[in-house]
Structure formats: C-alpha cells, structure tokens
C-alpha cells in the first residue's frame, strides 16, 4: 500500500514538473507558422561581448514581425556543436532562410550540405567559413584588412601632419591567433610597417582581452624603453596596454615628440570611444556589428528572386578626437575620419 502511495505521489510530481515545463513554450509556440511571414533561423555565437550583443539586437530589430519576418533565434553559447544542432533544427522546421554567425571557420560542410539539400539558402555573417562556396548563398562581414590599412594610413598621415621625423618604434598587440580579425589586421600592419619603414619592436598576442593585453605590454616595456606607438587589435587590449604603460611611469597621449605613447585601436565599443574622446586612444577604427538592416534587405532581395554578391563587406567608419587628419586614403580610395564628439558618442546604439 505504502509503495503505491509513494509511486502515485512521484507520478504526480512528475506530471506537475512536465506541465510547468511545457506550459512556457506552449504560449509562444502558437501562431508561429503564419504563412505571410518569412521565417528566418539565426544562429548566433553567444553573448560574450558588447559587440556581439549589439549585433544580436540589431538583427532582432530588423527581423521583427512588423517588418514581415518570423525570427527563430538560437544562442550557441560559444559551442560549435550547439550551432550545428541549431542548423539541423532550422532545417527540420523548414525555415525559409538560415543566417549563421559561425563560431569556427571549419567543420561546416556537413550541416551546410544538409541545408543546401533541403533547398534552404544560407547567409553567413561576420566570420568566414572554409566550406565549399557553393554551399552558401552569400557572406557578409567586416573587411579586417581594410580596417588595419585605414588605421595604419591614419598613423602615417598623422605623423606627417605633425612633421615628426624621428623613429617610429611600434608594437603590435595581436588578437586571438587564428581569428580572421587578427589575420586581417596583422597583415595590414606588417605591410604598412614595411612600406613606411616603421621599426617593429614586438608582435605578440593579447588574446583580445584586457588582462592579457596588460601582461604582454608590461613584459614588452621591460625589454624596450623606446616604444612610441602601440597598435592594439581591439579596445580591450588597448585598456590593458594603457594600464601597463601608466604603471611603468610613462604617458599615453597624442604628442609623440614629448615622449607620449600613441595608441591605435579597433572595434569602437562605447568604452573604447570614451577613451578616444579623452585622447587616450588616437584613432579607433570601427568594426560594425549592426548587420540587421543589411541582412533584412539581403533576404528581401532573395525573396523577390534577385541574386546576391557572394562576398560583401559592411561599411565601417573611423573615429578620432584629434582634428589634424580629416580623411585617409587607402588603395586610391578616400575614407573620411569622423571627429568624435560627446553627441556622436551619445547617439551611437552600442
């Protein structure tokens, strides 16, 4: 008797848990398969940085129901296997389009093949993949090499305007090894250093973090006391480098003649731009996360039967609080430099 009572109690408990677990999705599950809406599955890397979160928000805004979309969003929590699962789930749900912001460049052949066999167009965002080009419809991302070239061109133009004739002793704090941002920005740096005759003292990875950036810079400063320019491959590294320089008793700033160390940075996060506005960072080159609008228009083009270019780049700006350089020229093309003010900073969405 006792056993039965216990068993009944346990089944009851189970039922309650299940009902409560299923109750939540039941509400939002309704009305999802509205035929007039374009269903889009979006697999995002995670929510590891402000940059990523702004990217997610921008996509969510652009693919809203008012704009005629039904967005199925999946956060992969920085795990590649979760992203592969998400793509398979999108295929089972028979979505109209799949958008992926891939965590890794490799390992996409299998799931992209499944998508292409199901006839679902795939658009890749932000990062590249090494799968066969026929497996995806289009890819959009940042031109990291161009970002690097713009930063180097700015430095060159700035030093010329200052009519600085001394030696440029430069250090490159690289990003995570193997990341496409690191590859592009480092390549631009190497080319520029060779072209302009800069003296490269060190080139080490700061893994895109403040802590590692500081650690690496501290050890570089112990070896070289003549550093006058630091090329940081993202904002977080720049903060670490600033701390390292200041604790070594040196000054960060724009006046190279007076022995101040110039910082260049990328990503234009809010914190990074705040440092740019107060002159700590000379120039901050944008890495635009606002893909939403662009993606929505790409999907609309496909929906209307149009074709897309295989690889496109998103437009990116460059910010400085210093008014000396108004524009930079890279490969014959002129790009304006935005002079940063508090208003511009306040208006930016990220």
């Amino acid at each position, binding site marked *: 008797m006792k056993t039965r009572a216990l068993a009944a109690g346990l089944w009851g408990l189970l039922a309650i848990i299940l009902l409560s677990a299923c109750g939540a999705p039941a509400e939002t599950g309704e009305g999802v398969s509205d035929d007039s809406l374009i269903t889009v599955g979006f697999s995002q890397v995670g929510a590891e940085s402000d940059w990523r979160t702004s990217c997610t928000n921008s996509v969510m805004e652009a693919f809203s129901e008012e704009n005629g979309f039904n*967005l199925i969003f999946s956060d992969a929590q920085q795990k590649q296997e979760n992203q592969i699962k998400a793509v398979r789930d*999108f295929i089972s749900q028979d979505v109209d389009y799949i958008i992926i912001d891939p965590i890794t460049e*490799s390992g996409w052949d299998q799931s992209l093949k499944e998508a292409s066999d199901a006839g679902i167009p795939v658009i890749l965002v932000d990062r590249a993949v090494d799968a066969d080009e026929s497996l995806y419809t289009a890819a959009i991302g940042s031109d990291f090499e161009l970002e690097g070239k713009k930063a180097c061109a700015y430095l060159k133009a700035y030093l010329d305007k200052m009519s600085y004739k001394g030696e440029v002793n430069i250090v490159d704090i690289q990003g995570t090894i193997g990341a496409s941002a690191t590859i592009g920005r480092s390549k631009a740096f190497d080319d520029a250093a060779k072209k302009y005759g800069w003296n490269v003292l060190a080139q080490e990875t700061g893994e895109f973090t403040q802590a590692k950036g500081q650690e690496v810079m501290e050890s570089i400063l112990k070896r070289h006391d003549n550093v006058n320019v630091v090329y940081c491959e993202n904002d977080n590294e720049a903060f670490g480098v600033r701390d390292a320089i200041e604790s070594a008793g040196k000054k960060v700033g724009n006046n190279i003649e007076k022995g101040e160390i110039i910082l260049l940075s990328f990503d234009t996060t809010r914190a990074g731009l705040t440092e740019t506005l107060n002159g700590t960072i000379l120039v901050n080159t944008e890495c635009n996360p606002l893909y939403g609008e662009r993606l929505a228009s790409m999907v609309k083009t496909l929906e209307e039967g149009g074709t897309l270019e295989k690889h496109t780049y998103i437009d990116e700006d460059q910010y400085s609080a210093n008014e000396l350089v108004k524009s930079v020229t890279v490969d014959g093309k002129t790009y304006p430099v935005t002079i940063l003010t508090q208003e511009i900073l306040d208006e930016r969405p990220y």
Partner: protein
Amino acid sequence: MSFKELKTFDINKSLISITILLFFIMYGAGMLIFGRQGFAKPQVFLNLFINNAGLIVISASMTMVMIIGGIDISVGALVAMDCMILGDLMMNRGWSAWSSMLAVVILGIIYGLTQGFMIAYLKIQPFAVTLAGMFFCRGMAAVISSEVISITNESFVNISQLRISLPLLGTLNKHGKMIYPFIYPSVIVAFAVVVLMFLMLRYTKFGRAVYAIGGNENAAMFMGLNVRRIKLLTYTLDGFLVSVGGILFCMNTMSCFSDQAKGLEMDAIAGTVIGGTLLSGGVGNVFGSLLGCMIRGTAESFISFNGSLSSWWVKITTAVLLSFFIIIQSCMLIFNNRKISC
C-alpha cells in the same frame, strides 16, 4: 538471493521506467506543441542521435564507471585531446584516416589504463585522478596545437558524411525538395556500443562484478572478486570508449581546437543520472543513459523550436530534471531500507 540484490533490481526497474515515461511524455508534448513546425518529423528524432552520437557513447561509459562507484570527469578534456590528435595526425602529419583513428583509440586505452592503475592500485579517489586527467588532457590539446585544425582528410570526411537514408517516410518541404530521413554512420556505432555495453553489463561475469563492487565493495571482495583488477579493467574500457566517443564527436564537428567539448563531462553525468544511475554506485542501466541524453536533446530542441527563449533554459531544464531524479533516488533508497529493516 540476498536482500541487497533484491533491492537493487527493484530500484533499477523503477528508475528506468520513470526515465522512459519522461522521455515519451516530453517527446509527445513536443509533437503537440510544435507539430505544425515539423517536430513530428522522423528526422527530428534521428537528429537526436546524430547530434549526440559521441555523447551517447561517453554516457554509456560513464554509466559503467558510476555503477562501479567511481566517476570520470576527464571525458570532455579527453575528447578535446582525441580530436586534436586526430586532426594533427591527419592534417599535419599525413596519416591515413583509419590509422589515425586506431592511434587515438590505442592512446585512449593507455590513458584509461593509467587512470585505472592510480584508482585501483594506488587507491586514489577517482574524482582526484580524473581531475588531474582533465587538466592534463586540456593542456595537452593546447600543446599539440593552439590553432584550429580543420579536418579535410578525404576518407574521414567521406566516412562521417556518408548519408544512410531510409527509403520511406520522406517529406516534401516548402522549397519543393523531397527529404528522406537519414542518419550518419556515427549513429550506428553509438547504438552498437550501447547494445554491447548493455549485454556486457547484464550477462557477463565482468559486468555482474561491476554491479557487485558498486553495490558493496567489501562484500564483493569477500565473495572472492578481484576488485582491483576489475576496477582497472573498467577504467581501461572507459578510456577506450571515451576515445571512440571522441572520434564520433569529431565526425560531427569536423574541427579541432583545444576548447572543444567544454563541459561535456557534466552533460554525460547529467544524462547518466537522468537515466537512472545512482551516483553512489551499484545501480544503473546504459539504455537509461541513452534516454537521459535524448531527454536533454529533446529539451534543446524545444528551446530551438520555440526560437525566442534564451538557450540557457536548457541548463535550467537539466537542473530541474536532475534534482527531480536525485530526489526520487534518495526517496527510493530510504523507502527500501525501511522495508528491509522491518
């Protein structure tokens, strides 16, 4: 027949029946809620196996280790190291796919033997040994290469992407393509491992000894079982199976980097506990663990079919399920002990 034996078989059956029921309820609920979105398609069910093939094998091995009263928290790191070795041998050293896989499996056996020796003969806590193992493997994976290796070896790609389609139950999707349900070879391997493990634990001398040691180590020793040797064998087999799981994992992801499979050990333990294996040892079933993994997979599918919930809900669901099973287990144990004592 002793009381002890009676008791464990009782618990075994009731725990696994709860797991089975739970899986069907969850899956049925999914079909009801997300039926119009295609949750009822056979492919969704098969995807549970495709996505989790590696995890299923590793959970089967974890079940065996937990039945004997131990634990192995190095599995995630070992998978990362296996992937790294596989990638390095094939892509940087030009080994063939088969010989690389063989090498990984042999290394897995040696690794398991080492852990087993420390646990069985040096009598160190399994948690401590495998914790050290975890750091070792994660470190080695990064030492082998700190960069991402992408596997493009032709025969490895062909094996892993060989699509085995069922000729029936196909569905026409809205892009006008007829899609038949399919699996990859990894699913067959995973299923074979589960069946073999079940048979081995149930019907062989070794398998019964594993249950006996987990139930009561001293009693097993008095029965004349060579406890140390059986423990050594268990952890060696564990090293082998985890490496097989690692290869299956790699076949799904096709890329190797040192952070791969982070937290996989916890997923395997969660799947095993949800599947009705007691953390204290002596009770467990590999089919239960298979279902445990699939319950987690179903919860993941729920979240992604819903499309607007945060994916961290998977973790919360797992937490709820885990607590539920742990509470049931201890209730049953208390209840049984009382029955025996009166």
